[in-house]
């Protein structure tokens, strides 16, 4: 086969796409969840059950205050609605569908909480401010077949000047206990000087 014939065949060969770790709810090129879908969109979801999954309201629907408030208590988090971050790459819920991610984001005042119901090995602040940051692993279940927590959460305030990256690590289970750490996603939060708003993404 000569060079040019091989080239023609190549046109048909196509390109390969590397699968993402998480099935992407939003991929490059796909429409983003509407930024200002807001509480109305959330309410509509309940009003029209046949409309399918509804995008969660943006965490930025309410402006972030410059005032510093204390970290919310457990009751406040429970009462807070789920919100969508700027882009989640499928790792954090972007719609109200039960299958939309095993992680969720909630906001109370300037505080954000990211919670994942996934087998978790570690959560690490790679860099950035640790002020107000709280990371917690769920207790390891008292059952014989697992020795890792099945959930973890991170709570942090969103304030001007912020920049931080937090990595979530899971476990790749191997033969006869040959387990290893597995990257799950990195959470990025920033509110750079001069920016009108923060940015939170996780991929």
């Amino acid at each position, binding site marked *: 086969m000569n060079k040019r014939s091989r080239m023609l065949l*190549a*046109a048909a*060969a196509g*390109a390969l796409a590397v699968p993402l770790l998480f099935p992407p709810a939003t991929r490059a090129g796909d429409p983003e969840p509407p930024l200002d879908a807001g509480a109305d969109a959330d309410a509509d979801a309940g009003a029209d059950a046949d409309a399918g999954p509804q995008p969660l309201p943006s965490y930025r629907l309410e402006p972030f205050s410059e005032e510093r408030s204390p970290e919310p208590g457990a009751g406040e988090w429970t009462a807070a609605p789920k919100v969508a971050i700027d882009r989640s790459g499928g790792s954090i819920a972007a719609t109200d569908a039960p299958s939309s991610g095993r992680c969720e984001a909630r906001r109370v005042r300037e505080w954000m909480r990211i919670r994942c119901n996934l087998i978790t*090995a*570690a959560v690490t602040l790679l860099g950035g401010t640790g002020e107000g940051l709280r990371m917690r692993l769920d207790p390891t279940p008292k059952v014989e077949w697992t020795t890792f927590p099945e959930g973890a959460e991170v709570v942090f305030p969103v304030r001007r000047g912020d920049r931080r990256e937090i990595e979530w690590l899971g476990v790749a289970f191997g033969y006869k206990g040959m387990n290893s750490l597995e990257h799950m996603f990195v959470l990025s939060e920033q509110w750079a000087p001069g920016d009108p708003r923060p940015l939170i*993404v996780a991929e």
Partner: protein
Amino acid sequence: MRRFGLEFCLIAALAACKSGGDPRPQPPAPSSAAAPSAVASSAPVAAPPLPAPTVREGSTVARSPTSDSLYVADEDHGCVRRIRLPLDVNNPVLAVPMPGQPAQVLALADRVLVTVRSAGAVAPGKDDAAANDAADAGTSKPFTGRATLVPSATGPGLLLVLRPDPDKGLVEVARVELPQDAWGLAVTPDESTALVSSAWTHKVTAVDLAAGRVRWTVDVAREPRAVVVRPDGRAAYVTHLVGAGLTRIDDLQGEPRVRSLSLPASPLRTPVGQRLGASLAYAATLSPDGRRLFVPRHALGAVGPQAWFGAATVDVLLTGDDTPLAPLRRDGPRVVAADAKSMLEDVAAGGTAPRVNPAPFAQPRAVVYRDKDDTLLVLGEGDDSMTVLDARAVDPAMHVLASHRVASATDDPIPVARVCGAPSGIALSADQDTAWIHCRSTDDLLVWSFAWSGPRPFLHLADDRLSDEAALGRRIYYNGTDPLTSGGLGCAGCHPEGRDDGHVWHETTAVGARHPTFVSGAAVVAMGGPEDAGYARQTPMLAGRVAVEGTYGWHAESPVLTHRLVNGFALHRWNDAVTAYVARDLFDRAMALRAFLRQGLVPPPHVEGPLSEQQRVGREVFLSSGTGCSGCHAPATEYTDREPYRLFAGLPPPPGFVADPESRYKTPSLRFVGGTPPYLHDGRFATLTALVQGNDDHMGKTSHLSATEKNALVAFLETL
């Protein structure tokens, strides 16, 4: 559809600038089911009525603002190609010869700007090296040996101002001479001024486009490449192929002010308390609001899983105050499950460093900002990739949204691309739904639709002008995915364009069953403590320095170049020897690489002319028996006798390295030595002056020289 595929290829054959094309009829294409339907869909249709994104930076491919044409700067064929849009098989590709090798092209409303590296330089290939091709045909003949196979260019760099022409493609309307090796290109928002970087001569020049004359030229740090002008037009940023710093130039319309900026490379992958080196910053782009500058590059010494060569990164500068967006890495805090603590201690798997893939792309070569979804599209020359990154992240390279392999049709048994290898330039359509990607090692133009995931049509622009063996070597040279030649980084990753990355690598010692390997930082050396930090190895330049037969390797341990290349296959990877391949696999690759190194790499430009008085004195010093320089650095053979000598024996190694018990080092070539700091095999001298001042009779005899004679010697060395 089959007809389209075939005709596209015939167009390609006719489009070769010189002798690259082969217009012979070809057999029919494969079945229509597999044919590139996007080509059919791209047959003439009305252009979308969307405003074109403003592009003010050059690339190897550019779209005209009116979306009626693409222009490809084809450096390896010495021409700019005009391709009509929408793509139509009835519109031939026009090849417009350039007066040298074009580096970048930028299409404005009524003009097309092209940088030409050096006037008069001819792209290596069949037209001018036929005899050489014949001499080196086949894989078993020894190299016949010519002192310099590809000559250095001697002409000035150029900025060409061209006018689109329906018949001729482009017509030159102005030509401005610039410092040699003109490369990167950008224009001010009012399009009155073009800024051009000159890589080898480390200059940036402003050109008054209306007057067609140079407004100013300033000296900057080594290897300036991408130029990006701020939206306010008041300042420009310049990236460098070597080093982690940027250059900012203010007052572009008046008296320029130059200053260096610090932009830490991959700070979140940096060992705590350190700063990393960087390389390969060919490209940069601004966010649409101009508030962020994104610089894809390679971070040397970055940590992560098996990050022997460092990490691919996109570093972000906040242009409001010129500070880096990403913070430096901190070692926690973290929360760790009890049963995961031992896994965090596995250094080979990344230890406590970020575990996210440190190589989402290899050898970044081009970038665009896709503002319709706030993503960055980064082309990876080494892994033939287009990676989609989240531009909203603090560290975009840690936030991969999609990875696309743009290459296809790999060779068997050497798995390097036959189609779209080494992507080097990208342009977006006005609606940003299509990307056109120029692939340098195969000279293809790939059409990438974001709205469609089927086979990607491509346009083969021309066949390689090199011999088949050297052309294969070109594709291997850029490639970082062939598991035999490389562990993730191609030759071009450390020897960009055959030059050097300015980095001092660590060659780890062989321990037990472990083969010695190269790593880019001491923190990455996985197996031991400080005693295993490795020997210091400063990356040598290759272009123009490997034509002569003789010994190669740090200690002249390789009798010929191919032996050294095969050794390199084992050294340049993560801690495993090449054991699963037969000798023929190694030999074929080494022969192909050898052919490309000697026939395809273009040496840096050279200034012709008589020596100055100081340089003449320096030459006398160099040639004198009193110094003995030329006894080892033999002028007739690239200024090296290729013999090993004991040098600087007994002195401690540079900090962070261990002493090499073998202190005899092969004499390196001095060609182009003025542009390749740092110096000595271990990079201990930052400048040539420091080397001559600190030589202390370790190499030849220089202690007796006066300060004037030492300065003259340096001045002469800079002419080589």
